[in-house]
């Protein structure tokens, strides 16, 4: 590869001036341009490319990034710089400019000190570590990104980059050790007793908390050693590499006490008074931080919730097992939990009994029992009294779901909705959790629309039914097969005749029943944007009625969803027919009730329907879009190239999960963008709106034969 000539100061300054809009922002780019000009072309390209990409999100962040990244370029691995830039942009997307500038200004590499360190990035390790901690026993934990490693007992927070050690492998091992240690805190009961009040009894509660954390680290390290010997070996190696060994005087003796297999958090607390006086023990990176406020908040909410749920579920269980056992009879069902302390696997075996008879708890109850056991070290008796009828208002404790129509009435925008990412082509990266998507129902309109359509197209409908009837996969008898269920007498007679004549006898003498199954699931995504008002909407609804008629004849699984929205905060999918729903009068009324809504944001709809389709087990999966124009949304830039590129990216994702995508459009200018989005041969342009109802079923027929 030949070295490219470096860019000149003038070139760089001109580019920066344009991207950073210095005309309006008055940013000083001269010095920056001079500094960049001194770099190799390779580094110049890297830095300028990212500056340009960030500038499409925010100019100030781009400017600060360029200045800071300049000095880091020689020190830090490129991947980390990229992660740093993306982290800043994500922060900007979710919480705004100030925190994002905070990310840029704080040095994420302070204290790492390794030149070109190959750090483990949160996004890369998250998936593996999530599965990893789920595999370990206990409460199902979540993993999220935080500034420092800590846990609130439900979520493990890990930093965006771990680059303490030179090699990627070691940094990953360190992440894994960190996640394991945080898991161990929840698993081996670090947070059981009201800790804040204990620490408050000391003159300096923070010091007490730090000493407690240090003592617990001694205890939990040995717990990990017992439970996961392989990992403990890794941790010893990492500690040696980080120069973290040896215990100062009093701590070694504490360890001797806390490394007993029977040691509990209570033993740690018993040592706290003595350790409070001792000098601080430097902790390793993987020991994380102690965030008691977060812990106590999560715990108190969870304990209340779980008590309610356990009692309610036990009541259900009792009802199920002894339906006659009415509470009025005076002897309420007695649940009890016995704990076999055969702790070889490290897990307490909890056994649930009802009136002395052991029973296998359903999965939900078992998880609640485990979680409560982890919090309290046992199951208190009042938790085991089944809830009386109407004792709790379950609404209050349920995972909240709200009426999607309330979005604009209150303060909630994202609660309960599904968030989808969106592709920003200028950033060349996703905007995370960008679209706030909700599923809504179409208001059914019972006006006999479907019947009228069938009447109107009656001649066409009977032909349609016929042609779809023919596609139906019937069992077919294949003749002259080399093996099969039965002898093909015709072939045999012929073969015998051949043999008499001295010719070679055919081997294909059997018949075989071929039972082909059409295993197709298809999702129709209907444009419900405002531009479909009038003719187009009418034609779409007619097309859907005819299509349903054809598909019912055929027997393929199908679903119909309409999409529309106004800005990323309000992306809506309208359920018209779900995949598993039969074609009922209700569905017909919903088709009739399809009304034009707002704008054409397509990415979120494709992503959501892709997920729905991917969850089915059909052999062939198809996503067909019915649209009248290019992607477009109000105000927030989902227009022109941005919208097209996001839609294209969403379609890529769909195809990657094995879904065939196709588009039927009536936009006469579709040639300009549809080939780019769907591929050259994956769309059909219908010239006249009136033709739509007649064509759609036929297109589907061609697609699937």
């Amino acid at each position, binding site marked *: 590869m030949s070295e490219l000539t470096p860019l000149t100061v003038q070139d760089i300054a001109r580019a920066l001036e344009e991207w950073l809009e210095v005309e309006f922002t008055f940013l000083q780019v001269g010095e920056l341009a001079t500094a960049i000009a001194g770099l190799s072309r390779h580094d110049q390209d890297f830095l300028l490319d990212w500056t340009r990409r960030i500038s499409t999100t925010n100019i100030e962040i781009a400017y600060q990034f360029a200045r800071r990244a300049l000095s880091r370029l020689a020190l830090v691995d490129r991947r980390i710089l990229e992660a740093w830039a993306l982290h800043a942009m994500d922060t900007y997307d979710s919480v705004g400019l100030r925190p994002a500038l905070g990310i840029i200004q704080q040095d994420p590499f302070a204290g790492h000190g390794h030149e070109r360190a190959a750090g483990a990035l949160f996004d890369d390790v998250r*998936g*593996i*570590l*999530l*599965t*990893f901690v*789920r*595999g*370990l*026993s206990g409460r*199902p934990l979540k993993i999220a990104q935080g500034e420092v490693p800590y846990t609130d007992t439900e979520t493990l927070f890990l930093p965006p980059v771990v680059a303490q050690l030179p090699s990627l492998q070691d940094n990953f091992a360190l992440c*894994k050790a960190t996640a*394991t240690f945080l898991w161990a805190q929840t698993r081996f009961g670090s947070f059981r007793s009201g800790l804040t009040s204990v620490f408050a009894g000391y003159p300096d509660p923070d010091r007490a908390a730090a000493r407690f954390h240090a003592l617990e680290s001694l205890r939990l390290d040995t717990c990990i050693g017992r439970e*996961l*010997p*392989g*990992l403990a070996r*890794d941790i010893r190696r990492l500690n040696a590499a980080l120069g973290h060994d040896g215990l100062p005087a009093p701590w070694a003796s504490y360890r001797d006490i806390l490394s007993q297999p029977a040691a509990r958090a209570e033993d740690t607390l018993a040592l706290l008074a003595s350790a409070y006086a001792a000098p601080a023990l430097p902790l390793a990176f993987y020991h994380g931080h102690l965030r008691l406020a977060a812990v106590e908040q999560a715990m108190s909410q969870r304990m209340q919730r779980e008590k309610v749920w356990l009692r309610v579920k036990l009541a259900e269980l009792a009802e199920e097992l002894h339906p006659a056992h009415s509470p009025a009879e005076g002897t309420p069902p007695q649940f009890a939990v016995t704990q076999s302390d*055969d702790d*070889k*696997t*490290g897990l307490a075996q909890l056994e649930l009994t009802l009136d002395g008879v052991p029973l296998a708890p359903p999965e939900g109850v078992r998880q609640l029992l485990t979680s409560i056991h982890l919090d309290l070290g046992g199951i208190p008796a009042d938790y085991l009294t089944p809830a009386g009828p109407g004792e709790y208002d379950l609404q209050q404790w349920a995972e909240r779901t709200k009426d999607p129509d309330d979005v604009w009435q209150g303060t909630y925008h994202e609660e309960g909705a599904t968030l989808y990412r969106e592709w920003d082509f200028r950033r060349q990266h996703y905007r995370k959790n960008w679209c706030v998507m909700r599923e809504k129902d179409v208001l059914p309109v019972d006006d006999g629309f479907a019947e009228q359509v069938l009447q109107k197209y009656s001649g066409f409908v009977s032909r349609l039914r016929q042609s779809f009837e023919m596609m139906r996969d019937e069992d077919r008898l294949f003749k002259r097969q080399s093996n099969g*269920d*039965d*002898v093909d007498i015709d072939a*045999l007679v012929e073969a*015998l005749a051949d*043999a008499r004549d001295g010719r070679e006898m055919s081997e294909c*003498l059997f018949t075989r*029943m071929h*039972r082909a199954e059409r295993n197709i699931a298809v999702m129709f995504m209907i444009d419900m944007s405002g531009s479909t008002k009038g003719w187009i909407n009418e034609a779409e609804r007619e097309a859907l009625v005819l299509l349903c008629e054809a598909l019912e004849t055929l027997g393929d699984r199908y679903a119909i969803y309409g999409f529309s929205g106004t800005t990323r905060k309000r992306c809506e999918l309208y359920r018209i027919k779900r995949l598993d729903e039969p074609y009922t009068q209700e569905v017909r009324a919903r088709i009739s009730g399809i009304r034009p809504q707002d704008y054409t944001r397509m990415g979120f709809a494709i992503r959501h329907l892709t997920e729905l389709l991917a969850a089915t*087990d059909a052999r062939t999966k198809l996503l067909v879009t019915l649209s009248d124009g290019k992607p477009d949304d109000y105000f927030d830039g989902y227009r022109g190239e941005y919208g097209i590129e996001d839609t294209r990216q969403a379609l890529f994702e769909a195809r990657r999960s094995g879904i065939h995508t196709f588009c039927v459009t009536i936009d006469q200018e579709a040639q300009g963008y549809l080939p780019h989005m769907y591929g050259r041969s994956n769309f059909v342009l219908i010239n006249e709106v009136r033709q739509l109802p007649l064509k759609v079923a036929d297109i589907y027929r061609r697609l699937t034969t």
Partner: protein
Amino acid sequence: MNARMLKTEEYLVEKEPYYEPVGNEVAIFEAAYRNRLPILLKGPTGCGKTRFMEHMAWRLKRPLVTVSCHDDLTASDLVGRYLVKGGETLWVDGPLTRAARTGGICYLDEIVEARKDTMVVLHPLADDRRVLPIEKLGVLLEANPEFCLAISYNPGYQSVLKDLKQSTRQRFVALEFDYPFPELEKKIIVAETAIDAPVAERLVKFAHMTRNLKGSGLEEGASTRLLVHAAKLIVTGVAPVAACRSAIAQALTDDAEMLAAVQELSSSLF
């Protein structure tokens, strides 16, 4: 020793197959057999259903005819068909017919994998009639009194499309199987492979970790069979982490990230 060729119905289990009863399944099977009732074994893959069948065949001293069902298995594959030989047609019994004729135990493994119509030929055999209609011959075969029909299926992972129909399942005496308790599972692994008990214990622990992942990415956790495979490799000198990777992790999933995570679990244990 040369490999032996046996007719399907002559396959008698001669040596006692190792089997650890978990509950009263042996007694129930025997009682059902005495009463000529067909048997349905439910349970996840690799938890010992097939081994149990071999053990029972040995106990009852009956030949065992095993058919592994697949989605191309037709009724004629079970009942029999005409073949052409030297210009003549010739009837050949299928495994089910042979077992019914000679009084063997016919074991249809993973029955739901077979085509729907296959199930129907079992119905007259599975109720008190105990006959097998052979349409192509125009005869009804009365099953030998010693004949026994057993089927197995895994309720855990099949799709709703492959659920067992009520009309089928209500003809059978059902036995439920699950992975054995940790202690027993350890004992089984040690008995099968002569591995050191502490290593077996860790293998069981590893299996539980993968079973925790059922539903969050894995269709099934590691079965007892996979543990035995891994233990055999370890006894032969393969390093435990490598053995877990080849015998367990790779067998569970193809997903790269899941594989990496399962691998992290095993390397943490050994």
